[in-house]
């Protein structure tokens, strides 16, 4: 069996703040996606701002997705974005108050190898880390390059499928997992299922049957299958299948409604932000007024339209598994709101009534006059 060449960063001798990945021990094959999670070890220093740019070898590696996921960064100037054309992933984010930890989740990326060979991911020297010291002191950030040996697709291992969680790149609300694989003749199998990528199946043969795991807590799981031919030969990794479960809605949040003379020409705006601890925020939707329609928005700061039928603005946050959290803000909370905007609904109803009465009187007048 092919083995992975994956150089992970180890702690550097100097106490430099370190970016590292949780990509250990993954076999990488052409057209088979794999997930890499990125973390920061702040080395006992309080940090609050990260501007990160990673360069990857785009001749044999593609990014399918880059998301904050369960990131510990809670405010974003730029959420993770990628360019397969340039071979870059970039983000700018921060932690309110600051943080000091050995494992701060930064973001997740799903890669797809597109050609065999060696792939590299390196950190661009423009990446910047700032301390949480009130003046934004820049601190050295280190990252040892990450290398993958990409194997040909025809060497891909045994196929594993999951009728309940078919796409390993997707997040599911379903927390009961069914795993199936087609065994080869004269082959023994041992498998394990863990949220820890470093956990491997034991050396005890398991029955070849559909495998069911129930009542699983939220998280990313790896079904690892080892195989060997019958007889006293060593076990080898046969396949790894990833399952992602999120049953929990994003965190509750409270949008802010405000107006400031310096932005949007002093007109009111709403601002919102929240986190999802498991799969991450996928997108926000906004609905202006009680009869409005939900519309996706890429911005977390929106100018309030001049006319809203109804006095509410609702924000819906949807995580990658489709769990939702809705928060509604009442426009009456905005100070100095004009009379017309405040009572627009009543104005419309009264005007409709007046029109109805006027129409009825006109009808009676015309009927009388022309004896209709």
């Amino acid at each position, binding site marked *: 069996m092919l083995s992975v060449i994956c150089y992970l960063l180890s702690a550097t001798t100097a106490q430099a703040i370190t970016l590292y990945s949780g990509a250990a021990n993954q076999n990488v094959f052409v057209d088979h996606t794999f997930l890499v999670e990125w973390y920061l070890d702040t080395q006992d220093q309080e940090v*609050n701002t990260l501007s990160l740019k990673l360069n990857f070898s785009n001749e044999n590696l593609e990014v399918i997705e880059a998301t904050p996921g*369960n990131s510990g960064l809670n405010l974003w100037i730029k959420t993770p974005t990628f360019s397969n054309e340039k071979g870059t992933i970039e983000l700018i984010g921060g932690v*309110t108050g600051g943080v000091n930890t050995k494992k701060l989740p930064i973001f997740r990326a799903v890669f797809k190898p597109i050609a065999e060979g060696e792939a590299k991911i390196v950190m661009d020297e423009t990446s910047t880390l700032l301390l*949480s010291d009130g003046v*934004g002191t820049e601190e050295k950030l280190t990252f040892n390059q990450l290398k993958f040996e990409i194997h040909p697709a025809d060497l891909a291992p045994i196929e594993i499928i999951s009728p309940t969680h078919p796409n390993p790149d997707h997040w599911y609300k379903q927390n009961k997992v069914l795993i199936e694989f087609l065994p080869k003749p004269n082959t023994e199998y041992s498998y394990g299922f863990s949220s820890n990528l470093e956990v491997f199946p034991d050396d005890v043969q398991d029955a070849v049957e559909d495998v069911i795991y129930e009542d699983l807590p939220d998280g990313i799981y790896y079904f690892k299958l080892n195989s060997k031919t019958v007889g006293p030969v060593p076990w080898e990794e046969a396949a790894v299948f990833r399952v992602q479960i999120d049953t929990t809605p994003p965190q509750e949040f409270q949008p*802010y409604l405000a107006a400031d003379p310096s*932005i949007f020409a002093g007109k009111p705006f709403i601002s919102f932000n929240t986190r999802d*601890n498991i799969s991450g925020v996928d997108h926000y939707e906004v609905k202006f007024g009680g009869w409005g329609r939900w519309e996706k928005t890429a911005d977390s700061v929106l100018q309030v339209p001049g006319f809203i039928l109804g006095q509410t603005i609702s924000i819906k946050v949807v995580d990658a598994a489709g769990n939702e959290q809705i928060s509604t803000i009442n426009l009456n909370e905005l100070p100095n709101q004009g009379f017309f905007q405040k009572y627009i609904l009543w104005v419309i109803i009264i005007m409709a009534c007046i029109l109805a009465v006027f129409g009825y009187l006109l009808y009676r007048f015309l009927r009388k006059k022309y004896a209709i």
Partner: protein
Amino acid sequence: MLKKETKKAIALLMVAMALLASQSVFATDYSSTNFTVKDPVIDEGTSSTSSANFGLGQSIGQLGIGKSTSTNFQLWSGFQYFFKVNANVLTATPGAGQASLSWTAPTTFLGITVGSYEVGTGTISGSYVFENVGSVTTFIKSGLTAGTTYYFIIKALSPGGNFLVFSNEATAVPTAAGGGGGGGGGYGNQLTFNGIAYPNSLVTLVQDGTIAATTTAATSGYFSMGLNGLSNGTYNFSLYAADSTGNLSPNLNTSRTISSGVAVVVNDLIIAPTIHLSYSTIKQGESLTISGYTAPSVPVTINISGQANVNVTSDANGYYSYLLDTTALIKAVYQVFSHALVGSINSPNSFTLSFEVGDTSVPTPSPECKRSDLNCDGWVNLIDFSILLYFWDDTNPFNPRADIDKSGKVGLRDFSIMLYDWTG
């Protein structure tokens, strides 16, 4: 009938006894190098006073201090012999339809001991129903309604059942009883923060940038605040306190990972002192007051750049101050910050402030709005972040406050400073 001489003798005896009775009895003075107690006997009392609600026993003259005991009695004698009991610390951790209470034993002085405790429970702060739980320091209060905020307090009693001291008030919101099965997202996890701020200060807990809870610290500076219903995951928390003048402490930050069914209690959080300077510029030779708030009655170290550290002690309200004579300081800009020693734990540093020694004195102005508070509403929150985003990468922005570091451009350093100043 008594004889005339006998009557005279009795009369003389009664006069002599009356004279003796009207005089105080004086004992020998006692002293040390630091004090002298003169005539250490109190006048004899005459009687006790009482009503339906109270009793006042007056002191009786005693000739020396000490404790005498026998199988039948115990006598405490001496001059100004008052016992003292320090308040104990209560924490309450919510559970399914219950709250787990845990408290420290009060520290007692001069002989008094705690015999038992009463647990006070209520749904209104300051109003409790008490139940005696004996001589224990943990108790599970069950039969509580999920989702209701309960207030708890511990009353320490003497062996004779007399009231000694109240603990701080702690709160808990019990969760719904579990229905079995499970896994899932780990809803209902609890997280409790216990620590020391300043007496009666307002302590704020910020979770991932949003204010999640506030509480008022006890007169001891102690605070306890909890969050419930957290799903599994890693959270960033910041705590800060506002002193009685409205000055804020720096954020105290911690990151916690919450797992299913695990109640996390974070103890020994020490909030950094606040700090204030009476002048932003001080005329050389005049005096500058450096002051602030921290835990009560603790040593405070004031660090002035280029000068020897200054040690002062905070008072019972947590207030500390130092009058700095600037005669010996050269004309320059100085940085100053403080930190306190609370128990055996050093607090984080206060904010660092600057003052200039020059030719004139300029009082520290009351800030119209603080740094990073871009819309001047008193808070550094998502609205300010929105304004920063609006001007991101702008050179000389229309709103000059967005260029927080005054570098001429709105960029990463401004973002970092805003995150540092974040109040939620």
